């Protein structure tokens, strides 16, 4: 009986050593998560709904481990899942305090109402609005990210968010309803 006990102990010790070694080796092999890698998954609207004032600062906060990963409504649940995948954290539904996930939209300026104050041009983080002082402004659809930053900037409330062109034309197949739901 003593021999059996000794063998078990020796085996246990050997496995413990092997596991510790493996754990160290694998941890070294794990890639460091860079701010750039996180930033690449964010939608770059610079809308500030996350509370960090922009995509890059949010990516930095995520890299430091200070921020929740569910604070980006424009990225949607797909974005949350991509972040969770990269960071090795659990995906969580979008924080309603930050906003709701919306269909892709672009800003549209009511050109009859626009007074040409350039305030929206200054608010646009991607220079998607063209126009000059006392001249009518207009949004370049292809460049607009739908961040909505120009909407509160307008003193005459002439900017509305409308469905992105092309979104209606495009037909994506629906997600099949599933009898497989719970089995993963």
């Amino acid at each position, binding site marked *: 009986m003593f021999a059996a006990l000794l063998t078990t102990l020796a085996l246990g010790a050997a496995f413990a050593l092997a596991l510790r070694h493996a754990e160290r080796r694998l941890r070294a092999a794990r890639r460091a998560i860079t701010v750039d890698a996180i*930033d*690449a998954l*964010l*939608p*770059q*609207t*610079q809308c*500030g709904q996350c509370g*960090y*004032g*922009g*995509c890059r*600062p949010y990516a930095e906060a995520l890299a430091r481990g200070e921020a929740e990963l569910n604070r980006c409504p424009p990225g949607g*649940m*797909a974005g949350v*899942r*991509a972040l969770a*995948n990269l960071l090795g954290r659990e995906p969580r539904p979008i924080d309603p305090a930050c906003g709701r996930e919306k269909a892709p939209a672009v800003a549209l300026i009511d050109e009859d109402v626009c007074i040409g104050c*350039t305030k929206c*041009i*200054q*608010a646009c*983080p*991607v*220079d*998607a609005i063209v126009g000059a002082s006392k001249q009518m402004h207009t949004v370049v659809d292809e*460049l607009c*990210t739908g961040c909505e930053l120009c909407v509160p900037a307008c003193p005459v409330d002439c900017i509305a968010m409308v469905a992105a062109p092309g979104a*209606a*034309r*495009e*037909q*994506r*197949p*629906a*997600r*099949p309803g*599933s*009898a*497989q*739901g719970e*089995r*993963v």
Partner: protein
Amino acid sequence: MAVNLRESPSMRIHRFHGGMRLDLRKQAALARPIRACPLPPELAIPLATRGEAPARALVAHGQRVRRGEAIGRAGDAHGTTLHASTSGTVVAVEPRPLADAEVREGLCVVIEPDGADEWLRLPPIADWRAAPRELLLERLRDAGTVGLGGGAFPSAIKLAAAQPTLIVNGAECEPYVACDEALLRERAEEVVAGAALLAHVLGAARTFIAVEDAMPEALAALEIALHDAPFAGAALAAVPTRYPEGGERQLIRALTGREVPSGGLPQDIGIVCHNVATAAAAWRAVARGEALTSRIVTVTGAGVAEPGNFEARIGTSLEWLVAQAGGYTARAARLLAGGPMMGIALPHDGVPVSAATHCVLVLADHDLHDDAPELPCIRCGECARVCPAQLLPQQLLADLCADDLAGAQAHALADCIECGLCAYACPSHIPLLDWYRWGKAELRAQGDARARADAARGRFLARESRLARERAERLQRSAAKRADAAASAQPGAPTSPISKDAVLAAIARARAKKRPPPAGGAPKDGA
């Protein structure tokens, strides 16, 4: 009989992974010869398919066009030209519903035929064997020759680089679809001439013209045609009838024993595949100067009265086409664009024939098995056994059910050829193909969103650096002004108690103080 028809008896036919023998049901459509579909009262020619960039119409409302006249250019990099399919008047340029999985509706040029069907041909290149390949490629571009096997990919692009091997694909493997077989039976000489032309353009040393061994009439017709007009390096091949033998990758495997690399193209291993109808269309474009204005469409299924193959103008509505085939029967239950395995169910028949429409299938109610309930996966592995792309359908399903698109991507979802065999073989009736199509569309959308985000980041960074530069320049200017003023101000000269520069400097200081700490938001001042 098939064996002695092969030119080189030593040629070995390889086997691809998976696949299935299916009930072919092609006889109904092949019972009659190819019929010319009469001119419909209106032709709606789609300018873009496959969700490309928006197309540009080259004609305006009210303009008279002739058959073969360029009416539009696709907005993609390839700029495929589209042509009027008969002579008449343009009555509208507007978005119309399309028979496409990705695009609900697209820009169409609507032509009211005048009945004269007057051609505007390009100058024929009779001695194409002596013509430089650039000239022939330009002709194929101008004539709008695209892949007629269902892909509608511009042929000139596939031919742009010289490759040693050409495969002319007549292995029409999907049940019901018989347009290529009808073409081979009746116009094999055009296909052989087209194959010779494509081989010439490609500089191919070896050309395989492949059909399935279940098409003996087509094979015999091809043999006669090739005997009459032989060309160097040509070989006929009868491949086993096994779905999806006509898939590009599967056919390459069968004929050469080589695998197209995952995520790669046949061009990567020196092979180009073209459909037999594409070869015939290319020959017509070069030797007769005829642009692509019509194609052969199989109209079949238990839901139509007189199934058959029709030579239909591009832009003919499916409604008109089905009416030529005797109309719907009482049992008609479902309309598909394409065959039963890969086709797309259409909500109505008010969509036009495009270059990609090879089959219009109307299934009867007794063909449908929708009522079979979907059951949980029992891990039988039947799907993996039949998958010709050697994927892991169960694992892909698990990834997609969990919304793990990255996982599905890692398991090579992009290599799925959407043949539909996994769903066909599944004893639990899981709509696997629907899942994979959904996953592929989601991945595509995700890729687009990433590309847009990258572009937005570029513009944001450019704007930030511009604002920083402007701010620095402003500060520099005001500092220079201040220095100027200090130098010119004489002691004792009358000066105003507070200078304008001092005010500006104070404003700048106040702004600097107000600016949030570095971790805060993007500065909003400037411009």
